[in-house]
């Protein structure tokens, strides 16, 4: 018997699951970047209440487990009349995406904030004294300089996010880990099933890891 053949015996569970994992990762990452940038702007804003809201968001989402947040999104919200979709499967899929975005958004926010604060103060003062409004200054001076320095840490977040999508299986999303569990319960071939899932996860996170490490090394030399 050929090792790894189990993948082709149950292509729907493995490749279908892999596709769902990729989808949740992509949507979750996009959401996390948007949320994270927004929260980071709150955290550096000149208004104290806004800064306070940003800090509360970051601390809350970073210090509670993602599974608890996912359970809340898919079990708790429907009870107060909010569903992401009327269809049950759509609902848990979207709940998983939103959960990924909210949780990792908090980490993204901290990185973006670090990048924003890393921009030289003289630049900001110069931009303001040249007559740029606060928003213009953000748009043309502070944000563009921020993005360069935050790419490697954001890559690390992306890796964490891909791995964390496996938690979606606990709320019933048919992702890669879920597929492996299903195959195991049908065939009792745990080593093969989980081994195949392991290889497929490495297939996703491995190249990302290499890219981030290479970028980090380049940034280290540049600085």
């Amino acid at each position, binding site marked *: 018997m050929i090792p790894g053949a189990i993948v082709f015996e149950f292509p729907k569970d493995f490749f279908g699951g892999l596709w769902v994992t990729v989808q949740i990762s992509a949507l979750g990452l996009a959401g996390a970047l948007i949320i994270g940038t927004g929260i980071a702007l709150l955290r550096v804003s000149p208004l104290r209440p806004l800064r306070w809201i940003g800090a509360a968001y970051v*601390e*809350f989402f*970073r*210090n*509670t*487990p*993602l*599974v*608890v*947040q996912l*359970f*809340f999104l898919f*079990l*708790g919200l*429907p*009870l*107060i*009349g909010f569903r992401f979709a009327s269809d049950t499967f759509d609902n848990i899929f979207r709940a998983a995406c939103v959960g990924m975005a909210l949780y990792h958004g908090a*980490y993204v926010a901290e*990185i973006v904030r670090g990048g924003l604060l890393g921009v030289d103060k003289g630049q900001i003062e110069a931009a303001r004294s040249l007559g740029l409004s606060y928003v213009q200054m953000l748009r043309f001076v502070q944000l563009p300089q921020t993005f360069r320095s935050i790419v*490697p*840490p954001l890559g*690390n*977040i992306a*890796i*964490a996010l891909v*791995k*964390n*999508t*496996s*938690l979606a*299986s*606990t709320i019933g999303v048919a992702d890669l*880990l879920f597929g*492996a*569990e299903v195959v*195991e319960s049908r065939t009792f071939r*745990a*080593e093969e099933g*989980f081994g195949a*899932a*392991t290889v497929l*996860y*490495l297939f996703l*996170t*491995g190249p990302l*890891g290499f890219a*981030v490490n290479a970028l*980090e090394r380049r940034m*280290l030399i540049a600085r």
Partner: protein
Amino acid sequence: MDITEFLQAHGLRPSTWPMFADPAIWRFFGEGIRETLLISVVAVAVSFVAGLLLALGRLSTRRWIRWPSIAWIESIRALPVLLLIVYFGIKGSSLFRPIFGPDFDLPRFWAGVLGLSMYTSAVLAEIIRAGILSLPRGQTEAARALGLSHPQTLRHVILPQALRLMVPAMMAQLTTVIKDTSLVGTIGVFELLRQGRTIYTQFFNPIEVLLIVAFIYFVICFVLSQLSRRLELGRAPRLARIKIQEVQLRDQAA
């Protein structure tokens, strides 16, 4: 229409907050908290030992030790911790049967510890290695020049300094492990989240229960992360700080 919708539509879901005044509920939560803290402390202790060995393996000058260590650490770090936990939850018992006899049944608790520490040891190995590499090379050279052997240098000069440098980073990792323990509920360890799930399946009140559970996790993790921040990473050299930041971002799981 499912049961919760039905109850809601007919106004049959009264507020369940008053039930949390009952001390019995809190004893139930308390058991979960105890299990959560116990499993995370045991997992961190196990992973510290394993992580130290892995870090030394990765720094070894012998290729046949170094390369397998690198491959092991990097592939474990690239995996979801839940996959490891679920695997040991299913196969943990049969893995140990050749050693402990055919009737051996691995307790759920130890299956959870195994999954958690397999992952955490790889992460701690990277943190410890960053600490060791960040020490000035003069330390090793001086120790060797004074006639200490390589193991003696490690034992008396390098490790005491490197480990002390890495205490805040390891404490931060403890908060990650505490959050990760919420996953061992899926293989039947009765930790905090699992206890909460038992309550809300009885009383149909996931909102209240999950808010309380989230709040308890928040208090524990917030206090720990503030403590580790108080201890400051500032003393660690820049290269070690960058490595630690990377590890903390990439390997913070659930």
